[in-house]
Every structure is written in structure tokens, then in C-alpha cells.
């Protein structure tokens, strides 16, 4: 493992107090009735989740990560920049990653402004991602899924122009016209905060990351597929004259640590089950609104969905996805192996998974900070010294 090893804590901030009959609902997204949201319980959850992010900072995580979803119990972060603004004064050292607001769901100039504000407020600790947004977001927002990819690319163009060129400039696009693109404030970091694309492996998104030399992180794809995507991105970016560095390839891993493997599984599996079986539950139609995917991608994903169909099976999840549940030693071993294979030193830890109770999150983060992070940093440092000699 080369370079500085990096650990993020990703939080989804789910609303976990589901009604008893929630299994009767085909989806916890898009049309899951919002009468089931209790703001008093929501307030307590926000307090708990923010405390967990702050704890990650105190324990020495390198970054905390928030993101955006709409109409869903999966996440209470419809506006992640509000969460970022709330935690900046409390997060002393860690980077704050908003990974991120889909640019299609805001005016690009406004998103450039909001991110610049967060970057200035945090003295240059912001990192951002430009997701297309899940299919579900297009059922919840008044944006056409059939033109989403063209709009997405144009939005990123506008944001980068706003950040990298001295204003006022102008922009005459297919979706937006700016006569005076001149956003105040401007980012603290120059030329702008580090940028990533987060996606589920569409060739179009890989091409976009390659075009700009952005980092890329795949979500909800199998290990094998994630490996292929990283290779594809490196190749595609090289063709565009960009060298993708290891730290640009965050590797999302579900991690839970306890005293023994058995105890770790006993404590974590119910919450991993909740994450896959309930929090992520939705319909093929909501996942793929018309025009959102190419027909080819739709067929590939439909064929894959048929194979994965059949309820929660921890062994299968463990086999297919990056899941490290066990002792600290076992987790270190897996992370190092996967980091090596994926060509990354950037671990994006899903350490507060599903409806995990607060004490388990605290335990998990504490053991990560005590027994995993320092060891992996030390070993990477030793390798670096050997390499230097």
C-alpha cells in the first residue's frame, strides 16, 4: 500500500423508525408515505448522527462524508450542504466531503456558490462529488431523466468554469444561459476542492470522470465489477491525459469490528440486513425512470437483478460486496488485500450501517481508530520508507 492511507466515515443518516407494516411497502423510496416521519424522533436521530460524525473526527478519521437523497427513509439528508454547514464548526481536523448534491437538482451557479461557502467556512477542507443522482431522485424532482446525462455534464462544465475562470464570464448552453457567471464567494482551495464522480458503473459516468480527471467511486456494484471499473477509469483517463492517483479511488467498505468474528457478526448482521433488505428496498421502475439508462444498461441490470433476487443472504453479500466484519486483525487483512487489488489507499468506511444503534457505532469507530487505522498507517509509512531507501 503506497502513500498516505486515508479513512473516511460515511453516514447515511437514515430515518429508522419504520411502521410495523413497512414490509408491505414495495419501496422505502419515492412513494413511501411521509406521514411515517416523526420530526421529534427525527431530531433525536440528527443529534445522534451528528455526534457520530464528530466522534469520527475526534478519533482521527481523515474525513466525514455526507450525501443527498430525496423522498426516502434511507436518508434524512435531502440537503447535505445544510448538514455540512452544521458540522463544520464541530469537525476540527477531518475533511468534510459532500458526495454530493446531484448538480441536476440545483442551479449550477448556486451549487458552485454553496460549495465555495463550505470550502471557505472550513478553511479548505471540503471535497465534493458530482453524482448524476439515483433514478429515484428523478421521480422526486422535476427534472427530465431522459436528458439527465446531458444536463449533468453541462452543469459540471458550468461549475468548473465558475471556479476556475475569473468572473464575470458567460455561458451559453443547452440547458442554462449565464450572462454573468460571477459567483461570490470563490473556493478556498485552488483551483477548487477535490472532485469525484460517484456512480453505479454506467459507461457514461466513467467517461465523465475520465474527461475531467476526477476521482471515481462505484457504489452498489460487486467486487469484481468495482475492480473492472477502476481499471476502465485509469485507462480512459490516461487517454484524456489524466493520471488517476490511488487516493482518487475511494473504496467503499462496510466495516464492523468486535472482539471476535462471531460477536462482530452477531452485532452487525441485523443492521446490514436492514440496510440491504429495507433501506435499499425499491422497485425497478423507480431505479430506472424512462430514459435514465441506455436500453443496453437497462437489460444488463435487469438480468443482474434477477440473479440477485431472493432476499437477504449475508454469505452472498459478504462474497459479492466489500464487507469486512470481524476482528481488527481480520479487517486489516481484508482492507489491505482489497486496497492492493483496487489500486487505492483511500478507504471509505460505511461504519454506521442501516439502523445500527449508537453504542455499536461508537464501539466500531473506536476499535477502528484504536486497532486498524494506526496499524495501516504505520505499515504504509514503513513501506514508503523502504521504497525511498
Amino acid at each position, binding site marked *: 500500500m503506497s502513500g498516505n492511507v486515508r479513512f473516511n466515515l460515511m453516514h447515511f443518516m437514515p430515518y429508522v423508525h419504520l411502521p410495523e407494516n413497512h414490509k408491505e411497502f414495495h419501496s422505502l423510496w419515492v412513494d413511501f408515505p411521509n406521514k411515517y416521519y416523526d420530526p421529534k424522533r427525527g431530531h433525536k436521530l440528527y443529534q445522534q448522527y451528528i455526534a457520530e460524525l464528530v466522534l469520527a473526527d475526534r478519533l482521527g478519521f481523515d474525513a466525514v462524508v455526507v450525501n443527498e437523497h430525496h423522498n426516502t427513509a434511507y436518508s434524512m439528508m435531502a440537503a447535505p450542504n445544510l448538514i455540512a454547514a452544521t458540522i463544520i464548526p464541530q469537525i476540527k481536523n477531518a475533511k468534510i466531503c459532500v458526495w454530493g448534491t446531484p448538480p441536476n437538482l440545483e442551479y449550477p451557479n448556486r451549487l458552485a456558490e454553496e460549495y465555495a461557502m463550505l470550502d471557505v467556512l472550513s478553511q479548505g477542507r471540503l471535497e465534493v462529488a458530482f453524482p448524476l443522482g439515483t433514478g429515484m431522485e428523478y421521480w422526486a424532482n422535476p427534472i427530465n431523466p431522459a436528458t439527465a446525462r446531458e444536463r449533468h455534464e453541462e452543469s459540471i462544465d458550468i461549475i468548473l468554469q465558475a471556479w476556475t475562470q475569473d468572473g464575470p464570464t458567460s455561458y451559453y448552453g443547452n440547458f442554462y444561459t449565464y450572462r454573468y457567471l460571477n459567483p461570490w464567494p470563490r473556493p478556498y482551495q485552488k483551483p477548487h476542492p477535490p472532485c469525484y464522480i460517484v456512480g453505479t458503473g454506467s459507461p457514461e459516468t466513467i467517461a465523465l470522470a475520465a474527461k475531467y480527471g476526477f476521482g471515481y467511486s462505484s457504489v452498489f456494484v460487486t467486487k469484481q465489477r468495482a475492480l473492472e471499473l477502476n481499471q476502465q477509469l485509469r485507462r480512459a483517463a490516461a487517454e484524456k491525459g489524466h493520471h488517476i492517483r490511488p487516493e482518487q479511488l475511494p473504496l467503499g467498505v462496510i466495516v464492523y469490528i468486535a472482539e471476535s468474528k462471531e460477536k462482530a457478526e452477531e452485532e452487525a448482521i441485523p443492521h446490514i440486513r436492514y440496510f440491504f433488505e429495507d433501506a435499499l428496498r425499491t422497485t425497478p421502475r423507480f431505479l430506472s425512470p*424512462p430514459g435514465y439508462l441506455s436500453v443496453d444498461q437497462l437489460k444488463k441490470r*435487469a438480468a443482474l437483478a434477477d440473479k440477485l433476487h431472493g432476499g437477504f443472504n449475508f454469505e452472498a453479500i459478504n462474497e459479492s460486496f466489500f464487507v469486512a466484519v470481524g476482528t481488527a486483525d481480520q479487517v486489516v487483512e481484508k482492507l489491505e488485500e482489497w486496497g492492493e487489488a483496487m489500486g487505492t489507499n483511500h478507504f471509505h468506511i460505511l461504519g454506521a450501517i442501516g439502523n445500527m444503534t449508537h453504542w455499536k457505532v461508537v464501539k466500531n469507530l473506536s476499535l477502528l481508530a484504536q486497532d486498524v487505522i494506526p496499524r495501516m498507517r504505520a505499515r504504509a509509512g514503513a513501506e514508503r520508507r523502504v521504497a525511498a531507501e
Partner: protein
Amino acid sequence: MARPDPLAGFEREIHTVNGVKTVVLTAGRGEPLVFLHGAGTWHGFKFALPWAEKYRVIIPFHPGFGESGDDPGLSDMHDYVLHYLDLFDALGIDKLRLVGFSLGGLLAAKFAMEHGRRVERLVLVGPAGLRGQARPTSDVLSLPPEQIPAMLVTNFDVIKPYLPEGPDLDFMGDRYREGGTLARLLWEHPYDLKISRHLHRLTMPTLLVWGEDDRLIPVQMAEIWRRFIPKADIQIFKGAGHLVLDEKREAVDAVQRFLT
């Protein structure tokens, strides 16, 4: 059992219209009768064959539907009007009888309001495009695709042979493609905000045809269309849903009588 060929009885021409592959089905001889199809092409056009006894029936697949190619540059209904101007030039069609169904009804109305002198007679069958007042027109993009076929007819047997018996990736992909084209055109508004303002330009003889039990675009919409096209006739067929032409031979015959 193999599904019947939904295009049996037609000849197939391939044209390139301003760069877009455009497949045109034709049958019969005589003066041109152009049929503009709706947003789903899977149930074919067998119902139109009786018209071929008197007319040269011309059924083009719209770009992004059926056998025609894709062109994302055709991004609103008016682009399709212009596409048909090009196609009619290529086919040597000047004046025509125009029949439009559902999405094709909206398209036919828009073509006719701009090029009225070319349209000798106009038939709109369960046309989409007007925003409902008392009873909103169903937004097809809001319906789960698996629920749509049963909503189209009163007698499911009429369309059953054209549907796959089980999961069928190709069929699913074809429908997804047509849904994507529809979304490109109508996602922001599943109706045309301006059409009612201009419908008075439909001064040619016009017939509105509806299935009484249309569950996609309710039959009450017929009167709303006539509010804007005062001289239009309305014919409503009992025991038929949205696919009134597929379900009721009487409706096909009524269209033929009106056109003659």
C-alpha cells in the same frame, strides 16, 4: 406459442429523414391515409388493414419508437411535426387524410393546426395532450409499465397474443426505449400547455373517436376537445378502452366512413 407478427399484411419501406432511419409501413393503393401511432407499438396495426381496401395506408414509426431509429435531437413535439414534413416530402405526399391515436393524436392535431391546408380530413382517436379539468388525464409516465396493458382494453384477449408470456428482456428493453422517447417529449408536462389556444385552427372536417371505457385518457376528454374544435364530431364506442381501434371493428369502419 410464438407471438403473431404485429406487422403482418404491411410492406416495409426504409427512409432516411434528415439523418434518422424512418421505417414506414404501407398497405393498399389510392389516396394517402397517414396513421400516427401512440407511445406503444407492440400491439401492431392490424386494425388499419381494412382502410387499405380504399386508401394507401401509410404508418410511419416515429423516431425513437418501433423500428425507426433514435434521434435525441428531436426533443419536442414540434420537432416531430417538422420530421413529418420531411417524410411527406420524401414520400411525395401533399394532401392527406390524417388519423392520430393517443400520442399520435396530439401529433396529428399539432400537424393539422400548422398545415391545415394539407389535411383534408382529421381523425383523433383518444388523443393525448389536453390537460384534463374535472377528471385529470392519466399521466402514462406515472403508471407502472406492468399495469399499463390491462388499462388499455376492456377485453384483454385482444392484446394478449402480442404480450410475452413471462419476463422478456428484449420486450422490456423495447418498451423502456419507447418510454425514454416519451419522457424526452413529455416528462416536464404530460400535456401540451399551448394546444388549446390554437385548436381553433382545425377547420377541416374532424372526428373525435373514443372508447367509452378508456381508462388511460377518460372519455370525458372528448367534450373538452370539442370545446376547442366546435365543429368536430364525436363517436364513442361502448365496450372499448383506449385501444378502441384494436377492440372495435365498428370504430375502424366509422373512421373509414368519415374519411370517404
